[in-house]
């Protein structure tokens, strides 16, 4: 009897690995990248809440709130015309070329806390880049539309994503703010689709979902 269970277990394992090999590739792993404080986690939370009811991580006004990449798996997004896409969302720490703890002091953090935050944020960037290299099938590049998009980091990151031949969607976030200029982002990256949204207010996210199905499906 025991032998039977063992063989049965082995067969089952083989069968399921065979199945997963066929079906696994259908799940696209989407990384949300962008500079700190662009609203990456807010968007990840919105996507996860809209389609699964869960949240991904905490958000705050202090830059580098997300210092470890967080993953939410198996999110099924369906569009108006019935098309669907199943994705894993990876919320990544904000990528930047300079991290200084003084920046955090302005938000009321004490010095020790700020220094630890800076160190963790640095590790976070390294981790985000590791994900980009190894395990990402598509990228949502998120920008704050109230800020200048022509920053070296943005140009460099979009260049890196392009060189890896990953499909990319550029999201111009925070369009609910009065000084938002999503058109500036559009002119900065004319080679990619740019979707202006407000991930906090949920403005225009439907268009983003449609575009995600189109680009990542």
């Amino acid at each position: 009897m025991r032998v039977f269970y063992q063989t049965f277990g082995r067969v089952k394992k083989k069968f399921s690995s065979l199945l997963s090999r066929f079906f696994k590739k259908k799940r696209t792993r989407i990384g949300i990248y962008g500079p700190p404080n662009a609203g990456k986690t807010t968007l990840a939370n919105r996507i996860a809440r809209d389609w699964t009811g869960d949240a991904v991580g905490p958000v705050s006004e202090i830059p580098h709130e997300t210092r470890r990449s967080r993953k939410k798996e198996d999110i099924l997004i369906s569009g108006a015309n019935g098309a669907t896409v199943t994705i894993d969302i990876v919320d990544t720490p904000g990528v930047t070329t300079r991290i200084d703890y003084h920046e955090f002091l302005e938000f009321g953090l004490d010095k020790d806390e700020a220094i630890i935050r800076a160190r963790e944020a640095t590790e976070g960037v390294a981790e985000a880049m590791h994900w980009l290299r190894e395990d990402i099938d598509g990228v949502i590049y998120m920008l704050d539309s109230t800020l200048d998009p022509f920053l070296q980091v943005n140009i460099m990151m979009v260049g890196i994503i392009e060189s890896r031949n990953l499909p990319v969607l550029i999201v111009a976030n925070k369009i609910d703010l009065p000084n938002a200029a999503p058109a500036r982002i559009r002119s900065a990256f004319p080679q990619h689709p740019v979707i202006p949204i407000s991930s906090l207010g949920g403005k225009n996210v439907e268009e983003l979902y449609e575009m995600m199905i189109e680009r990542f499906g």
Partner: protein
Amino acid sequence: MPHKCTKCGREYRDGSTEILKGCESCGGKKFLYVKDSELHKDILEEKSIEEIAQETKEQVLEVRTVQKKEVEMYDRVETIRIVGPGSYELNIEKMAKGDERVISVGKEGVYNIDLLSFAKDSKKKRSKRK
């Protein structure tokens, strides 16, 4: 006998040490030694300072300053530069290429190399995940 900046024509009296830092008006580094009698020739005869230099056969004096060459981010060897405690400069282009970590600390030319990160086999990692 004064010096004249070849760029903007500003005059400096003879033996002036100010020119060693470059012209105060335009930052020019080249100066021509002009005779007092020819001091205003460039304006009166509408000549460029180069032309006067040719006429008087006087050598143009160049102030040489050792320029600190700014190394472009992507040419740098380190992935992370620790400027001070809690202050970092990240080389994301280098990070995009591999997991190897070279960390430079404080003053220029001091590096920490994470040898273990160099030894990892990325192909092995990839096959493991499947």
